[in-house]
C-alpha cells in the first residue's frame, strides 16, 4: 500500500430528484498530499466526499482509491483505506462510551481484542483524549467530540483522511489545537471546508468547486490571491492576504 492516491475521472452524479450535484470532475491526489476542497454551499463538496468512501457509487466516471477502483467488491477495502471524519461529531460518536466508539471500527475489521485495545489507546493518545476514555460522548465539549471523532478514524489506521468541515463550531483555541494536530499527520488529507484561513495553514493545494464543477485546482496561495475567481465561486479573500485597510501595506 505505498500508493495512497485518490483519482477521480469524469465523475458525474445526480440526486434522485434530478439535481445534478456533480457535472464531470477529474483530479488526482497523490501520496501524502494535503488538499483542500472549497466552494459555496451546495457546490458539491459533500457529494464528492460521499463518493470517496463508497457511500455513493459513481453513476458515470470512475473513482480510484489507492490500488482499487471503487466497486461493490472493493468497498470494504476502500472504507478501510479512507478514514472519513463527518461534519457533526454527534453522528460519528454513536457508542455509549468513547472507548467503545473508538473500538467500533477495529472490531469490525475483525482484529483480535488485544490489538483493538492497543489501537484504541494509541489513537486516543494521538489526539490527546486519553483521559476521556470512559466518558459518554454526549458529556463531551465540542472540541473533545471532534478530537474523539478523529480518533475513531485513526484507530482503523487509514491511509487517506477525508474530513468534512473539521474546524466548524470550534472555539479559537480548540481550532488551533486541531490545526496543529492535523499538521502532524502524515496521511494523505482531503479537507472540505469554508475555513480558508485553516486551508492556508494546512493545505498546499486547493480545489475550488463551483456548481458541481472544478473551477480551479492549484497551489493554495495562488488561488487565494485570485480575487475574481474567489468572488465568482462564492468565497472571499481571507484577511491575512488582504492589504491593511489603514496603512495599505
Amino acid at each position, binding site marked *: 500500500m505505498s500508493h495512497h492516491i485518490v483519482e477521480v475521472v469524469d465523475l458525474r452524479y445526480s440526486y434522485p430528484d434530478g439535481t445534478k450535484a456533480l457535472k464531470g470532475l477529474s483530479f488526482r491526489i497523490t501520496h501524502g498530499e494535503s488538499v483542500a476542497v472549497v466552494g459555496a454551499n451546495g457546490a458539491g463538496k459533500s457529494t464528492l466526499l460521499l463518493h470517496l468512501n463508497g457511500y455513493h457509487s459513481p453513476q458515470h466516471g470512475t473513482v480510484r482509491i489507492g490500488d482499487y477502483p471503487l466497486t461493490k467488491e472493493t468497498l470494504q477495502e476502500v472504507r478501510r483505506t479512507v478514514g*472519513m471524519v463527518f461534519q457533526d461529531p454527534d*453522528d460519528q460518536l454513536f457508542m*455509549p462510551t468513547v472507548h467503545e466508539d473508538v473500538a467500533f471500527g477495529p*472490531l469490525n475489521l475483525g482484529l483480535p481484542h488485544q490489538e483493538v485495545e492497543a489501537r484504541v489507546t494509541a489513537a486516543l493518545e494521538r489526539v490527546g483524549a486519553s483521559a476521556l476514555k470512559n466518558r459518554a460522548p*454526549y458529556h463531551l465539549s465540542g472540541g473533545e467530540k471532534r478530537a474523539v471523532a478523529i480518533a475513531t478514524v485513526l484507530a482503523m489506521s487509514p491511509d487517506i483522511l477525508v474530513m468534512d468541515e473539521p474546524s466548524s463550531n470550534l472555539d479559537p483555541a480548540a481550532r488551533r489545537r486541531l490545526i496543529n494536530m492535523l499538521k502532524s499527520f502524515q496521511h494523505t488529507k482531503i479537507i472540505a471546508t469554508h475555513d480558508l484561513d485553516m486551508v492556508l495553514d494546512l493545505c498546499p493545494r486547493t480545489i475550488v468547486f463551483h456548481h458541481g464543477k472544478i473551477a480551479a485546482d492549484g497551489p493554495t496561495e495562488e488561488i487565494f490571491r485570485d480575487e475574481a475567481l474567489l468572488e465568482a465561486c462564492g468565497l472571499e479573500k481571507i484577511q491575512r492576504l488582504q492589504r491593511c485597510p489603514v496603512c495599505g501595506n
Partner: protein
Amino acid sequence: MAKIDTSFFDIGRLDRLAQQHTPVHRLDPRAKLLTTMAFLLAVVSFPKYEISALLPFLLYPIVLVTVGQLPVGFIVQKIVVVAPFAVMVGIFNPFFDREILLHLGPFGISGGWISFASILLRFFLTIGTAFLLIATTSFHGLCLAMLRLGLPKVLTVQLLFLYRYIFVLGMEAMRVFRARALRSFGKRGLGMKVFASVVGHLLLRTLDRAQRVHRAMLSRGFDGEMRVLRPLRLTATDVLFVLGWWAAFAVMRTYNLPQLVGTIFTRALS
C-alpha cells in the same frame, strides 16, 4: 424551558453515578439485572390490599443505596417526577371501592384507599429499584447484560441507540421549542397546529440524522453485526448476590414478616 433542560441532564447524572467503584457497582450487570427482575416480580405479585408485607422489600433498595453510595435525595426526586402516572392509575380506587376494611379508632378506611396506598408503595419500590439499577449498572451495562442473557441483538442495539440519541433529540427539541417560544407572543403560535408541525419537523430531522449515523457506521466497516469489547465474567460473589437475594425475596413473599414480628411481640407481652 429550563425544566426540560435540567431533567435531561439529570438522566445523564444517573449514568455518571454508575461510574463509581463500590462493591455494588463492581457486580456483574447480569447479577443485578436478574436480582432486580426477581424483586419486581415479587413486589407486583402481591394481592391488591397488601401493604405491610411489602415493607420488608424496602431492604433491597436501601442496601443498594448505602453500599452503592448513591444520593438518596436525587433518586427520590426522580421518583417523584414520574409519580403522577402512579397517582393516575390509583386515584379512582377510593371512589369505587368504598367498603370499609380497616378501623383506626373512629375512622373507617375503605378498601379503595388501602389499594391506592398499596399501588403507591409498589410504584415507589419498583421505579426506585429500576433507577437504582441504572445508577449502579449504567444503561449500557444493562443492555450488555440483556444481550448476554439471550435478548435478541436487534432489540438491545435499538435500546442502545435510543439511549444514545435521546439526549441529542431532546436538545434539538428543546432548541426548537425555545425558538418557538421566543417568537410567539402570548398565546399565538403556541397552539396545537404549530406543535404538530414542529413535531413533524423533528421527525424529519431525526430521519436525516439516522441516515448520517448509518453512513458513519458504514464508513467504519459496520456489517450489521454489533461487536462488543467488554467481556463479562460472573464471579462467586455475583452468584452469591443473586442467590442470596432470591432466597430473601422468596421468604419475604411467602411470610408477612411485619405481621409475624408483631404476633411474636404481642405473644411475648401477653
